[in-house]
C-alpha cells in the first residue's frame, strides 16, 4: 500500500510572528521556515506504517514555491521514499490546495492519505476534510491512533470531551493530532541519503487545477493586549476582591 503525505512549509513554531507596520501582512522576512509540526507527525506515522510492513511506499507532496523542496527533503530524511513539488504562486487557500492534492491523489492512487490536521500559520484545519469531500472518501480527523486493517483503517480521534473511534473504508484521509506520535530526528546519513531520493516537480496548471481567489486578507493586527492587575497579599484579600470588586463569586 502506498501512503501519500501532503506537507506544508511554514514559519518555524519557535518564531513569534508579528504583523508588518502597515498591517498588510505578517512579517516573514528572514524567519526560519520548517515542516509544519502536524505534517511532521503525519510523515512519522506513514514511515512507521512502512516499517511495520503495513505500507510499501511513502510519497510526500508539497505545494508552493521552489523553496518547499527543503521541507520535502526533510521529510525524505525522516524516511519518505520520494517527493512531489507542485509549483504554484497562485492563491493557495485550503480549497485550492485540496484540489491540487485531489489531482495528485488520482495520479498516484494511494491506499491512504495522512496529513496534518492544520498548519500553524493559517490555523484553518480544513484541507484534509476538503480533500476527503472532493474524493468522496471517509475522513478520520484529529487522529491519536491509527490501525490499518484489510480494507479498513481504525482511527481514534481526539474530540471535545474524550476520544472517538471510527472504522473507515480505505482509501481514506487521516489528519493527525499532536498525540499520534513523536516524530524522529533525521540522522546525518539519512539526510545525505535524502538528497539522492527522487523529487518530481509539477505545476498546478499542468494538473488542470484552477486557483481562483476565494478570500482576501484586508489587514492583520496584533491581538488586544490584556493589562495586568494587582497583587493581593493574602487569601482573605483575594476572596474580598472577588466578592466585592470583581463580583464573580
Amino acid at each position, binding site marked *: 500500500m502506498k501512503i501519500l503525505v501532503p506537507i506544508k512549509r511554514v514559519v518555524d513554531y519557535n518564531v513569534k510572528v508579528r504583523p508588518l507596520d502597515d498591517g498588510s501582512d505578517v512579517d516573514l522576512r528572514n524567519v526560519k521556515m520548517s515542516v509544519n509540526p502536524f505534517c511532521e507527525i503525519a510523515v512519522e506515522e506513514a514511515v512507521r506504517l512502512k516499517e511495520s510492513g503495513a505500507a510499501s511506499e511513502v510519497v510526500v507532496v508539497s505545494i508552493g514555491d521552489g523553496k518547499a523542496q527543503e521541507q520535502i527533503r526533510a521529510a525524505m530524511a525522516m524516511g519518505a521514499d520520494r517527493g512531489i513539488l507542485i509549483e504554484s504562486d497562485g492563491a493557495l487557500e485550503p480549497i485550492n490546495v485540496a484540489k491540487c492534492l485531489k489531482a495528485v491523489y488520482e495520479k498516484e492512487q494511494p491506499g491512504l492519505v495522512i496529513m496534518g490536521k492544520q498548519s500553524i500559520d493559517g490555523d484553518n484545519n480544513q484541507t484534509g476534510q476538503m480533500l476527503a469531500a472532493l474524493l468522496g472518501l471517509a475522513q478520520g480527523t484529529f487522529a491519536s491512533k491509527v490501525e490499518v486493517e484489510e480494507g479498513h483503517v481504525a482511527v481514534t480521534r481526539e474530540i471535545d470531551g474524550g476520544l472517538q473511534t471510527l472504522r473507515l473504508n480505505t482509501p481514506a484521509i487521516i489528519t493527525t493530532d499532536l498525540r499520534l506520535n513523536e516524530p524522529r530526528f533525521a540522522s546525518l546519513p539519512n539526510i545525505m541519503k535524502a538528497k539522492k531520493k527522487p523529487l518530481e516537480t509539477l505545476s498546478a496548471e499542468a494538473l488542470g487545477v484552477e486557483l481562483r481567489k476565494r478570500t482576501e486578507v484586508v489587514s492583520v493586527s496584533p491581538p488586544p493586549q*490584556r493589562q495586568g492587575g494587582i497583587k493581593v497579599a493574602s487569601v482573605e484579600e483575594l476572596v474580598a476582591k472577588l466578592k466585592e470588586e470583581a463580583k464573580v463569586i
Partner: protein
Amino acid sequence: MSVLIIAEHDGKSLKNSVSQCVTAARALADEVHVLVCGEGVTEVASAAATIDGVTRVLTADASHYAHQLAEEVAPVVTSLAKDYQYVLAAATTTGKNLIPRVAALLDVQPLSDVMAIESADTFKRPVYAGNVIATVKSLESLKVMTVRTTAFDAAGVSDTAAPVDTVDAAAPVNISQFVGEELAKSDRPELTAARVVVSGGRGLQNGENFQLLYDLADKLDAAVGASRAAVDAGYVPNDMQVGQTGKIVAPDLYIAVGISGAIQHLAGMKDSRVIVAINKDEDAPIFQIADYGLVADLFDAVPALTQQLS
C-alpha cells in the same frame, strides 16, 4: 438574508454552543434556521426552537445520522445550503470536522474560528496561534464558517417556540462506521461551558494533588482544567488541557494555580473576564495578565481559599 446553523448535540441535549452561534447569526441576518441532524431528535429540536432569535428549526432524522458522522451529515447540509447566504457551526471538534467537508462539496472556501463580524462579508479570525488577528473578506456568495463560541454571548430563551419542520434525509453514504467513544465522565460542568474554571499546572507536582483543585472547584461549581505542562507530565488526561492546542475557554472567573503562563496556555484563556493567578514565583508571566495575583505556595493558599468559600 438567512443563516443555517448546524446544531451540535449528543442526541439528548443541545450544546450551549448553538446559543452562541445564534448570537453570531443574528448579527448577519434576521432569518436564523437551525438544522438538527440525528436519530430521535424531537427533544433536541424543541430545545433549539426556544432559543431567542431562532426563526425555524429543521430536523433530519434517520438511523444513519445516529453518530452524526461528517460523511453522512455533509450531504444533507449541502442540499439545504443553496437557500441560505450563510452556513454556520461552532468551532468545536465536531464543527471543524464537518464544515470544511460541507464547504468543499459546495465549492466554497470556508472561514475557521470567526471571532468577530465586521460586516456582511468581512470577519476577524486568529492566525499564527492567536499571535496575529487577520481581518478577512470572503469573496464567496455563500459564506460557510465555524464560529469561536467564546467570542459570542449565548442567546437567551424565548417564550414562544419557532416552528419545527422535517427535511428529507440524504441517502446513506456508508463509508465510515462508528466503533465507540470514551468520554470523560464528570459531575462538574464542561470546561468550555463553565462559568468558573480552576486550572492547574506543573506546580501541582503530581496527579493526586489535583484533588486540591477539585475540592476548590466543588465550592465554586467550577470545571477543572490544566496546562499543557501538566498534561504532558501525565498528571491529568489530555481533554483537560486549556490552551492553543487544547480547549479555548473564556469563563467569568479563571483561577490559574501553579501555572507559569506559557504563550500556548494564555492563548486558551486570556479572554476570561477575571483572571486569578496563584504561583509562588513572583516573576511568572501569568501575573502580567492576571487581574488578581497571589504570590504564595499553592499547597497553603488553595486549601485556605477552599475553606474561606465554605
